[in-house]
């Protein structure tokens, strides 16, 4: 089997036994990127030289008997919303074109400290606003299962990179589903950790109270390995939690044995029904049955306030984003646009011209929404009210977790839709995140695991598992058990069924 089709854990083993080298593995992935990324467009920036240098350094360490980490030498792709010293960081926006951060995000620093060569930066919706990666200012990413379809968003680049074997691992960020929903529609695994479980320092904030960095991989175990590497307290992020997590890798290995005896699984009533694609629902039901077969006990739970989650989210997110994005003013970095015919323009005019030219429509839409929601006289009715509903959603979770150890739902209501299909209909685009948003509002962790292909279109569907805050290990145990049962049923990984990609498709 080609090295690029192996999981990160398998590559790590091959490196450990000396079967291959990091340089070989890294070069194989760079070759794959060169071959297929013209069609997929998962990457905004590929750092072949840097990655190979880091790979050579990793091989030297291993030769000297001093690898830094189990994943030392396993290459990784990083979503372009994370600051990388010396590598461009655009957040998918023209306004940051050419900006090279002078510092590393904490998670990137951890990757480097563990010796993972960084292949490049992955495509995303501009400032992580979107569910299709079509809002990238640098053009959309294509779904490796069907290049005419979206790879999900905002982290479509990371998910597509992993799904098309351009990278064994990737980092994503999840504000309302941006790791999990792309995972669902590309047949990959994505995890949103507990809020505060992974440092946000160096993550260019979309909505600070919702954002979380997490792993994007092809297997549950790989996610656990990466999650353990990047997680943990960071004094530079005061919202990060100063408390050790239970071992995630152990939980994944335990789950892979297929025994879920005594685990209570709650099916969320509100996250199914009208508007949910039948094929997605069928795969979901089958997965639930597999969990029962593994020994889990299934209960129905109701979270009545979840129906308000989308509205709540679309007040809190734009409010925080409108303030976060104010810093892009052409004064210190990034794009600077001089207003036409105004050689002696004031700073204010330059700011206005730059923001007008540098931000895309979706970003402007949310800045306007957020500015309005925070305005005096409207604050209580919108932002203040949204925070109250948020508290209610947390209470629904608490009540549900009293009845169940984990909660489950389909990750997204549909499989991947066609590029351009929902671009002119923001509301219908927003509905993609219906099932993933509640976890962000409450700060609880969630995972999306592939549940199979929908019968009507043959495209991947995702199974979402949610756990209480700090109980991220439960995601891995249940996720790995489901993955094992499904892989058994399919006779191999789901991605084996994806069509061959050809570099000159387009």
């Amino acid at each position, binding site marked *: 089997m080609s090295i690029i089709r192996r999981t990160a854990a398998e590559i790590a083993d091959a490196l450990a036994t000396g079967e291959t080298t990091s340089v070989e593995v890294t070069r194989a992935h760079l070759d794959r990127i060169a071959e297929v990324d013209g069609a997929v467009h998962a990457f905004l920036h590929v750092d072949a030289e840097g990655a190979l240098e880091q790979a050579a350094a990793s091989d030297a360490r291993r030769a000297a008997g001093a690898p830094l980490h189990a994943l030392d030498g396993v290459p990784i792709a990083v979503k372009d919303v994370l600051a990388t010293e010396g590598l461009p960081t655009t957040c998918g926006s023209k306004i940051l074109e050419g900006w090279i951060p002078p510092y590393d995000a904490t998670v990137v620093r951890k990757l480097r400290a563990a010796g993972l060569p960084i292949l490049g930066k992955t495509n995303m919706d501009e400032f992580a606003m979107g569910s299709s990666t079509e809002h990238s200012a640098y053009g959309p990413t294509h779904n490796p299962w069907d290049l005419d379809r979206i790879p999900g968003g905002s982290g479509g680049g990371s998910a597509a990179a992993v799904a098309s074997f351009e990278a064994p691992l990737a980092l994503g960020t999840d504000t309302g589903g941006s790791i999990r929903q792309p995972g669902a529609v590309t047949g990959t695994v994505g995890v949103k950790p507990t809020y505060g479980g992974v440092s946000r320092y160096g993550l260019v904030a979309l909505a*600070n109270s919702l954002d979380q960095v997490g792993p994007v991989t092809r297997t549950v175990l790989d996610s656990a390995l990466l999650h353990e590497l990047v997680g943990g307290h960071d004094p530079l992020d*005061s919202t990060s939690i100063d408390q050790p997590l239970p071992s995630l890798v152990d939980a994944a290995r335990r789950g892979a044995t297929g025994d879920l005896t005594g685990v209570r699984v709650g099916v969320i009533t509100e996250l199914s029904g009208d508007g949910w694609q039948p094929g997605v629902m069928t795969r979901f039901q089958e997965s639930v049955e597999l969990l029962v077969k593994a020994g889990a006990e299934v209960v129905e739970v109701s979270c009545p306030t979840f129906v308000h989650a989308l509205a709540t989210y679309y007040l809190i997110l734009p409010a925080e984003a*409108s303030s976060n994005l104010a810093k892009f003013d052409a004064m*210190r970095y990034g794009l600077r646009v001089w207003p036409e015919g105004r050689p002696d323009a004031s700073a204010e005019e330059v700011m206005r011209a730059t923001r007008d030219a540098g931000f895309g429509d979706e970003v402007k839409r949310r800045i306007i929404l957020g500015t309005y929601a925070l305005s005096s006289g409207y*604050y209580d009715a919108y932002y203040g009210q949204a925070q109250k509903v948020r508290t209610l959603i947390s209470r629904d979770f608490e009540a549900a977790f009293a009845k169940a150890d984990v909660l489950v739902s389909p990750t997204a209501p549909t499989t991947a839709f066609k590029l351009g299909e929902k671009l002119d209909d923001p509301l219908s685009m927003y509905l993609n995140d219906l099932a993933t948003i509640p976890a962000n509002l409450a700060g609880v962790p969630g995972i999306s695991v592939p549940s199979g292909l929908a019968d009507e279109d043959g495209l991947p569907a995702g199974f979402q598992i949610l756990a209480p805050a700090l109980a991220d290990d439960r995601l891995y145990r249940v996720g790995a058990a489901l993955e094992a049962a499904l892989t058994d049923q399919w006779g191999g990984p789901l991605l084996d069924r994806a069509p061959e990609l050809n570099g000159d498709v387009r």
Partner: protein
Amino acid sequence: MTETLVSFEDVLASYEPAMGLEVHVELNTVSKMFCGCPTEFGAEPNTQVCPTCLGLPGAMPAVNRKAVESAIRIGLALNCQIAEWCRFARKNYFYPDMPKNFQTSQYDEPICFEGYMDVEVDGETFRVEIERAHMEEDTGKSLHVGGATGRIHGADHSLVDYNRAGIPLIEIVTKPILGTGDKAPLVAKAYVAQLRDLIVALGVSDARMDQGSIRADVNLSLSPKGTGTLGTRTETKNVNSLRSVERAVRYEMSRHAAVLDSGRTILQETRHWHEDTGVTTSGREKSDAEDYRYFPEPDLVPIAPTRAWVEELRATLPENPTQKRARLQAEWGFSDLEMRDTVGAGAMLIVEETIAAGASPQAARKWWLGEMARRANEAGVEVGELGVTPVDVARVQVLVDEGKLNDKLARQVFDGLLAGEGTPDEIVAARGLGIVSDDGALSAAVDNAIAANPDVADKIREGKVAAAGALIGAVMKEMRGQADAARVRELVLEKLQ
């Protein structure tokens, strides 16, 4: 535009002033409010910056515990309540020297609230109620280049120094100060002076108004006498000396009265204080419609100071200003009037330091309230800003006590100190100011004086000792003041009796 003004007496005949003071105190923490950058004053521009205080994408704030401690100590010294739980908030507005285009501040949940400070003016005590003291970060500093005035209008470009961005500030806001009448300007000045002394005693700030480490904004409105309704206020910014606080209040009272007398209305606006000309000019219009879109800072967790910590900090407070004043007055043996003048001149701390450096209380008071006050007044600054230190003054007094200088020579030493010519001893040596008590030189000068004034000499020979003054004066003149006057007198009398 020249404003029409009403005389201060006429203002008081028709109106009652209401004041509100907002004082920003720059803390002297080693690092900034939300990052580890140093805070030293006067470094090369943009050398004390990092991703956080530059507002680079992705960077996050982390609260400086020492700054929280200083905020709590200031609050306790101002008799405030300390919040059990409070948050930071974002104040959103665009400005080129604001790295994030929002200031991380506190809004409706300040760390300190509901306190007071008693200040004394002309023997009368006024209670200034404190509404809140909250933490925030400073902005960068814009330098407008190419214009005539250093202001943005007319400049051809601007430079921004972000060294100041993120320096911790405590903003102390009073409730409306009412009922001060003609004392309003003095109450305002006394409040800021006493607050400054308190900050110095707490050791939480350099407390240098001339370097901007204490900055006052003065809110003022007038209400027609007897109506009790508050008028429209103006907010005067950049009031950066004690003297200016007093003058700005006085100026705005006169200007408000003139506007109101003419039947026009006061525009609610920010005004700029001009130290040089002693006037305020209109800044931006500040209507209530200005909307900072405050919301809780989502990158910071709430601050919940434990009661044990608060009590620990309370135990570190210096004595309160009223107690301290009473103690010093007793120690120094000052009369009520002497003490009041000392406090009123904003010189209590400097006199205290001068005494600590070796001067007698009366001598310290004499120099600071006399010679130094006169020079400060001429220069339009506070005595503390003259550049003469308490150690200098104490040393000059020691030289006087040792007979090496007289008061007249001492004044020349102060000239030298103000001109930056070195220490008092260096100035005495360089300018040749030492008193001559060498009999050889004095004796020759006395002989010259007797020869030049034979009629005066005759009177003394006849026993009119009082006439000796004229000869002593002539000798002093010849010796350019540097003679030991007592020894000259002895020599004159020896030679003529």
